[in-house]
């Protein structure tokens, strides 16, 4: 955990791109399994516990089995046919693809989410503006916007209560939610407007600005990038050596 907090938040984004591209070149069980095993070792050795992993990547733990099942049932059949119900065909090929796809979603997604979820928005903004050199007005406006989310949560509760108080909650759930959402939108726009005024009143929007919090790259950032490259290279290397490398461009 601590190790991740010391890298620049921009680095995991770069690393995720660097890692995903080779990992998405092939759809095979071996490379995905090797990568997952490698990440399990990495996480354990830098103190990222299973609870953290699950908390950050749970959407994938749902998505991976779902994509596997749809492959299992609907992939183009080949090899022995095991079962067939209307359009759904389970074949040797579809079993293999299901496993490969399911593992791949996890192998690419889990480390990415573990690294990116829970990044402090302020540090990320500092990194994006100072290291990645994105336009600072855009980055800071987005950062100030993220703070509004918490405020809007409370607005939403108040709006829902106010609508009940006014006797307006008896219509259907969909209509009620749409109306409340519109009310929230109006409040959000007003909050956004006053926020812009407050920012302008503090001199925001000039061509030059300084940064109170330095955002720099260090050796840890280099280590993270190397580590990611190493995992990807190992996974693909083992897959090639085992002869299971199956490039996407050769078609399913």
């Amino acid at each position: 955990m601590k190790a991740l907090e010391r890298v620049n938040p921009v680095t995991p984004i770069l690393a995720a791109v660097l890692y995903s591209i080779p990992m998405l070149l092939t759809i095979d069980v071996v490379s995905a399994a090797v990568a997952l095993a490698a990440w399990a070792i990495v996480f354990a050795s830098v103190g990222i516990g299973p609870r953290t992993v699950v908390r950050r990547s749970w959407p994938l733990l749902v998505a991976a089995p779902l994509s596997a099942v749809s492959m299992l049932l609907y992939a183009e059949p080949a090899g022995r046919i095991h079962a067939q119900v209307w359009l759904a065909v389970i074949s040797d090929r579809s079993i293999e693809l299901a496993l490969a796809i399911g593992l791949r979603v996890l192998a690419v997604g889990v480390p990415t989410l573990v690294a990116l979820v829970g990044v402090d928005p302020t540090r990320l903004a500092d990194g994006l503006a100072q290291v990645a050199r994105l336009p600072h007005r855009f980055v800071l406006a987005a950062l100030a916007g993220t703070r509004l989310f918490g405020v809007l949560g409370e607005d939403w509760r108040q709006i829902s209560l106010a609508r009940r108080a006014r006797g307006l909650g008896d219509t259907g759930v969909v209509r009620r939610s749409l109306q409340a959402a519109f009310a929230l939108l109006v409040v959000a726009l007003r909050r956004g407007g006053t926020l812009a005024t407050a920012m302008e009143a503090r001199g925001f929007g000039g061509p030059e600005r300084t940064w109170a919090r330095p955002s720099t790259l260090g050796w840890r950032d280099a280590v993270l990038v190397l580590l990611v490259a190493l995992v990807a290279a190992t996974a693909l290397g083992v897959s090639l050596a085992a002869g299971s490398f199956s490039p996407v461009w050769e078609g399913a």
Partner: protein
Amino acid sequence: MAGLDLDVEPGERVLLLGPSGAGKSTLLSALAGVLGGDEEGEETGELLVDGAHPASRRGLAGLVLQDPQANTIMSRVGDDVAFGCENLAVPRDEIWPRVLDALGAVGLDVDLDRSTAALSGGQRQRLALAGVIAMRPGLILLDEPTANLDPVGVAEVRDAVARVAADTGATLVVVEHRVDTWIPVVDRVVVLEPGAGVAVDGSPHAVLEVHAEPLAVGGVWVPGIPVEVDRARRAAGPALLVAETLRSGRAGEAVHEPVDVEVRAGEALVVTGPNGAGKSTLALTLAGLLPPVAGAVRATTALRGGAAAEAPIRWRPKQLATRIGTVFQQPEHQFVAARVRDEVAAGLRALGRSDAAVSERVDALLAALRLAHLADVNPFTLSGGEQRRLSVATVLAPAPRVMVLDEPTFGQDRRTWQELVRLIASLVDDDGCAVVAVTHDADVERVLGDRVLRLGAA
């Protein structure tokens, strides 16, 4: 605002007064250089700050807005104060000492890493002030900085401003209705007239000596002229709502000790207590909007009539609106329509009232609350006082027998205050309604407190 001629010397501390619509906030925004461009209105004449157009001199003037929530920009206290310095390209080595100085000057003694979401209103306003003075502006502009604060918060912010003005010698322009709060801090009072520029200008003593009466009539809270609303108290009627060992809160966590209280017809109950004591949460629970954490809220048969359930939280929205009306602290949370007239009618239409009945009731309410001339206006464009009156009108429309009001007089000028309190008093005295009013306002407690429930911190 038009035809204004005003010179403010460096180091002067000016209190800007005037009725709603006199352009006080507009003037402050113009001085701060955040008034917006041509598409948002017309500008005639000349406004110079330190010899230049304010929009061209970023950082020369610092502005604190009325809504504490609107002043907070960053998620952490230190970052928020540093934000202005960064924008002015102050070197990093210099920023953090400035941040610490500024937080010290406003007396905000919290960690730099403290989340800004965890601050009280008074702390938030002092944080905003710190963010402004860290920029070392020559001109500090305060737009009703204490209007949304409880008495403790008001004193905190006022004292911080006084200290900052004394330490930095900055020029100060404050807009406020509550004159007595600011008289010790300012050395000049300027009264604006809508569309006519400066009406009165002079030392606080001179202005208040001569013009106290007209100022009070115009809505300014002038010291020494108390507000009075006559009551024709009647004997309290039957209990409508009964709270038994009630504890209220959010997400199952109680925010106050158990409360036993009866809400009676023809009687006003004032709920008061320090910030965070759970006043608003209790009011929402009594109003059938939040489920009790422990204990119970019962509606008596006098209030319930045909409604099946005894607990108001189990009523359907329509059953609730015709029995208990709630006026929220922020009127804009309550608005659902694009025109004032439709806003008042919305609840009645939902109840299935005939068009004729709806328009008769709406006309009567708009007239009673002096909103008839605004019938076709968008509720969100109304002034604070008008929004408050409108939110009261919407809740009154289905004629509930219990009215729950959360800080009905927050941030209101003297004139709107009197209208609102007079209206609430007449609901109780003339119509025999039961009123529950949550307030920090000692005058509201004095006039409406037929019974007073004081909550302590949990």
